[in-house]
């Protein structure tokens, strides 16, 4: 009998792998390796890459997208998606530009940007949670609707003339080469990492993504959690809209065009399963760095933006396909 107990305890270890092996095999480490490789390749490819101001400029390639990416990561982990984020940016930016025509000051503009983001998020959230509609279709619809309203308001015109105090949100520096946006990015990374990995709410997000029915039966208010996540994604899009509008200094209806694809790419590249249930904020942070560096490095080499997008697309498929391909080949 003691023998039987012995084998049972041996066949059921507390952990499948030790902490060390888990970190070594983790997606984040692989991604970090890729990031280091790209960094080294960039320093070799261009002598201008290591300049602190150039590196600081490079961060603008990902800060705004990554801010949305954090909220999107939570949303995708919970099994939903929001493809309307770029549409929300367009609408929020248009609303701010419209208010500017009536002499609204910087605090008012910021409030409007945040409010429009929240409202759009609430609209998506109500359609998905109250009416039970699939989020991918709903947000494809709202993505056209939100940007469409911008087109109705603006047509081929643009809003200009944002005040200097507003421009600081996109162009200001807190300390030396550390921009306001970079600080915001770091702060949100920390906040979202804490929320997702250290709170009950974060646990609920994972549980819902793995099995919404089981989550409901264990007393988690699934619809409310999802509603909060849609609101958060909308709010982050509003914040991104403020930063981007301030940085560009103008609003056109084509602002942030196709950003939803880049944000989703960033999140998936960061190791968040598109099927829901797994992923980490650290992964999204590293993915943001990878994408920012690829874009910036290729930019220094005068590679056109659209060619970079091939790179990003190939990266998205490659990082998911290669581990699966290796596993498949090893099995046979």
């Amino acid at each position, binding site marked *: 009998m003691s023998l039987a107990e012995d084998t049972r305890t041996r066949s059921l270890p507390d952990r499948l792998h030790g902490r060390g092996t888990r970190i070594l095999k983790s997606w984040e480490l692989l991604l970090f390796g890729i990031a280091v490789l790209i960094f080294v390749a960039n320093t070799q490819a261009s002598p201008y890459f290591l300049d602190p101001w150039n590196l600081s400029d490079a961060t603008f390639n990902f800060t705004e997208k990554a801010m949305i990416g954090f909220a999107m990561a939570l949303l995708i982990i919970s099994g939903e998606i929001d493809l309307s984020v770029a549409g929300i940016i367009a609408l929020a930016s248009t609303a701010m530009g419209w208010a500017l025509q009536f002499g609204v000051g910087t605090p008012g503009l910021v409030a409007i940007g945040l409010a429009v983001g929240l409202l759009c998020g609430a609209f998506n959230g109500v359609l998905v949670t109250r*009416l039970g509609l699939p989020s991918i*279709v709903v947000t494809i619809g709202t993505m056209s609707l939100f940007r469409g309203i911008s087109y109705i308001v603006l047509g081929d015109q643009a809003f200009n003339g944002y005040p200097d105090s507003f421009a600081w949100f996109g162009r200001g520096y807190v300390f030396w080469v550390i921009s306001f946006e970079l600080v915001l990015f770091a702060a949100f990374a920390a906040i979202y990492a804490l929320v997702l990995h250290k709170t009950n709410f974060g646990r609920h997000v994972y549980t819902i993504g793995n099995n919404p029915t089981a989550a409901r039966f264990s007393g988690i208010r699934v619809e409310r959690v999802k509603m909060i996540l849609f609101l958060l994604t909308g709010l982050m899009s509003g914040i991104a809209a403020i930063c981007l509008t301030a940085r560009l200094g103008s609003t056109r209806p084509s602002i942030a065009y196709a950003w939803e694809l880049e944000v989703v790419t960033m999140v998936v590249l960061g190791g968040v399963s598109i099927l829901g249930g797994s992923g980490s904020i650290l992964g999204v942070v590293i993915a943001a760095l990878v994408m920012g560096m690829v874009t910036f490095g290729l930019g220094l080499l005068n590679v056109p933006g659209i060619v970079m997008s*091939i790179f990003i*697309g190939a990266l998205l*498929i490659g990082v998911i396909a290669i581990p699966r391909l290796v596993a498949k080949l090893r099995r046979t």
Partner: protein
Amino acid sequence: MIRDFIKSREAILVAALIALVLVVESRFSGFAAPGNLASVFNDTSILIILALGQTLVILTRCIDLSLASNLALTGMVTAMINAAMPGVPVAALIAIAIALGVIMGMFNGILVWKLDIPPIVVTLGTLTIYRGLIFLISGGEWVNSHEMGAAYKAVPRFELLGLPVLSWIAIAVIAGFAVLVNRSALGRAFYAVGGNPHAAVYTGIDVGKTRFAAFTIAGGLAGLCGYLWVSRYAVAYVDVAGGFELDVVAACVIGGISIAGGLGTVTGAVLGALFLGTIKNALPVAGISPFWQLAISGAAIIIAVAFNAQSSRKQGRIILKSAEHAQ
């Protein structure tokens, strides 16, 4: 059977479509004239063909967001070949377009089938890759009308029995799909895979292979549309049909193709595309700025999906006739 049709989503769509045409006609007479309706159909042909391809993909619980990029790339390739080698016959160019589209569809399909990567991830990736390749091969240059051969541009416009060839191609694709989806084993497999993938495996259907077939067919149709689009509008550039992938998804959703898979009909997809096409054609007639179009498409998607969800809270499509009688 007639009672079934009246209760079906297709009947509601037909009614909505007729109502839409009548409303526009009441304000701007001549819109409902047969000649104008034929031209609306012709304008919508490419959307119909792509929506049918997308329907197969969505039926199997997948989605293909790369169709418009595929179209633009094949269109550019045929235009560049035509500009560089005017001697190549148009039939050969069409064959090249379809073959190229099939290859791109197969690439999507093989990643979904063999590596089990979620279709939305695969096609988000290939959406940007295919679009980027256009820039690589063209160097960002346009192929303009005067560089294209007369025959290259003439084929889709050539009138046959009162309708342009473009319309006839759409009609042929619709007819082909009606047979494929309703009368073939593969057609049944699309529904089975989307309706219940696990059950499909137990009935001997290879889920991955069926999805691969759906992506391949959709890709081939996108290739065909690449030639049709570029020759019809007589210009090829990097951003041809930019964002059109969403119009295609919108047409399917409006047509009642369930994004959850296994539910939807050929008629629905065609009607959904026609509904969207009619709105697009009615806007300039009604003097509404084209800037309204995007918002209207978006609103149409949301209304359609909300409506579908209300009416389709029942079981999926019944594949066996005997099972239908047993109910």
